[in-house]
């Protein structure tokens, strides 16, 4: 637009004010972006897993109830099932770490078929299959603890009163997913034998069963059949899509979402006031200039538009700094947040970026509307009146 250079000059006419207003918006929208990204990442990750056509089977009463290991074979026997493995959360203590990382007892034969997005060197996978006391670790888990293939590690049981001594047979990575990269997979049979030796009642618990369907169609039908298979046994199950399974964890956070929304709302309103105030101050200094423009022949509409665009521009530039800054920061999380667990899966999805920019535009619009209207209403005669 040909008026753009003029508008830009006005944006920068008071550099300090423009920078401060912009920074105010940038910082606050950075925060809002991160908060919303938190919610949206869960959704997006959930969406992404759709392509793998996986079903998660838990005990009907909930995640913490046992699923008999024998169920796994029965699931495998169903038509439409390509592979199925137990994935039992061991939750052991590694050295001094306070928060247990993902340690899963599973079936080495089919684990890579079910969790197909992870890449392991064939030799390492073979070694893992052959070594009952062996394990595969995710690339990030290895990075964080300086593990190498061949290292021995010890996991002290918390849920299960046993100690696991494992050898790292291999390290797996992935190009598409970071979900399991901080985890460790070991033989279910190894854990089970230790438990059986103690005659523990906890033996034989598969925890959850991850099922890979042969095709993404008719997942609903397969889930029904799985449920039906065990309905009248001692251990009925509930089968849900992997997406739904993940959503359960977000749901557990409950009102945190409401809290985030309220904080975001407060922030946005606050910014409208802040930016509006800055715009009003700027326009107060320009009453005469506006009068001159109108004398020259700028219509009310043009004057209103110029001011409104100026307000929106400031808001969107500030917004871009904050929103894109957030995206960039978390894109570089490996460098910035090195060593902090759990953050590897976190990023700012583009949908959140767009949302943030839309907020910025809205802030600009609402902050500019009153000053723009008042500028349009300026009386030329009064505005040109000589001071002396």
């Amino acid at each position, binding site marked *: 637009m040909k008026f753009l250079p003029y508008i830009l000059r006005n944006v920068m006419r008071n550099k300090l004010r423009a920078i401060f207003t912009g920074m105010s918006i940038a910082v606050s929208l950075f925060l809002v972006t991160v908060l919303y990204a938190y919610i949206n990442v869960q959704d997006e990750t959930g969406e992404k897993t759709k392509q793998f056509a996986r079903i998660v089977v838990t005990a009907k009463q909930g995640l913490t109830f046992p699923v008999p290991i024998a169920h796994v074979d029965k699931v495998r026997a169903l038509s439409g099932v390509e592979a199925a493995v137990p994935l039992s959360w061991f939750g052991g203590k590694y050295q001094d770490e306070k928060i247990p990382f993902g340690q899963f007892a599973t079936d080495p034969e089919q684990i890579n078929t079910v969790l197909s997005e992870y890449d392991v060197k064939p030799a390492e996978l073979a070694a893992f299959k052959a070594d009952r006391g062996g394990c595969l670790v995710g690339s990030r888990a290895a990075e964080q603890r300086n593990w190498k293939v061949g290292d021995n590690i010890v996991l002290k049981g918390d849920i299960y009163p046993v100690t696991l001594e494992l050898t790292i047979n291999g390290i797996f990575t992935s190009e598409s997913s970071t979900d399991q990269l901080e985890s460790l997979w070991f033989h279910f049979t190894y854990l089970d034998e230790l438990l059986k030796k103690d005659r523990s009642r906890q033996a034989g618990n598969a925890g959850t069963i991850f099922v890979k369907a042969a095709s993404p169609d008719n997942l609903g039908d397969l889930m029904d059949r799985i449920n039906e298979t065990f309905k009248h046994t001692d251990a009925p199950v509930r089968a849900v899509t992997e997406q739904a399974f993940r959503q359960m964890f977000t749901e557990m956070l409950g009102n945190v979402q409401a809290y985030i929304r309220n904080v975001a709302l407060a922030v946005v309103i606050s910014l409208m006031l802040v930016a509006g105030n800055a715009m009003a101050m700027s326009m107060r200094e320009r009453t005469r200039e506006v009068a001159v423009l109108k004398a020259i*022949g700028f*219509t009310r509409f043009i004057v209103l538009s110029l001011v409104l665009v100026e307000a929106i521009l400031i808001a969107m530039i500030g917004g871009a700094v904050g929103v894109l800054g957030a995206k960039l920061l978390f894109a570089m999380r490996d460098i910035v947040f090195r060593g902090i667990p759990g953050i590897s899966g976190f990023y700012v999805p583009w949908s959140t970026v767009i949302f943030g920019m839309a907020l910025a535009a809205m802030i600009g619009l609402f902050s500019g509307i009153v000053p723009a209207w008042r500028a349009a209403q300026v009386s030329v005669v009064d505005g040109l009146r000589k001071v002396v």
Partner: protein
Amino acid sequence: MPDPARPAVVELRGVSKEYMRDKTPVPVLKDTDLDIPQGDFVAVMGPSGSGKSTLLNLVAGLDRATTGTVTVAGQELGELSESKLTRWRSHHLGFIFQLYNLMPVLTAFENVELPLLLTSLSRRERAEHVRTALKIVGLQERHDHFPRQLSGGQEQRVAIARALVNDPVLLLADEPTGNLDSTAAQEIMDLLQQLNEEFDKTIVMVTHDPRAARRARRMLHLEKGTFVETEVDALEARR
């Protein structure tokens, strides 16, 4: 003496203007008639409160007469709506103010270009017009300077270039030399005279300054809202 045979650029008939102050009407102009033909250069003088600025505002279409008609370049201003009037102004008038009133954030070039942004000229066409206007006022080399980098006289010349750039029918000047020292004032009046004589621009100038007024072709005195003409003085002073 301007040629009355030439078409009138400004025609006022029975024009009165009164303002309301606390519900009491205060008359500023009383039943005024005025004719300004093409090519005329009129200086309007009078004590403060005499209505000079009001007269200018009415001719410019910045204000509306209480009674009577104001016709400029054949257009009766009373017939136009607010937005049409604004657009009409951009095509037909050029303004020169006492306080120059340049946009501080724009360069001289960009200030002069401002009225052209309201037209549909292309960027190149606009630049041409601006350069021509700046040449006329003699400030091409300073086209990229900001107002704060110019002297008072130079600022006023940029303002004049801005007033010229859309080739207006009428130039309105409100105390153009009011803020200038005598040297700069002289330069400005030289320029205005040149515009009137060489370029045939019609100029209506409100001023306090008798030396500036004497450069015009005609002098009109406003006293308490009515005219008292004294053109003889003007001619005398110039000859």
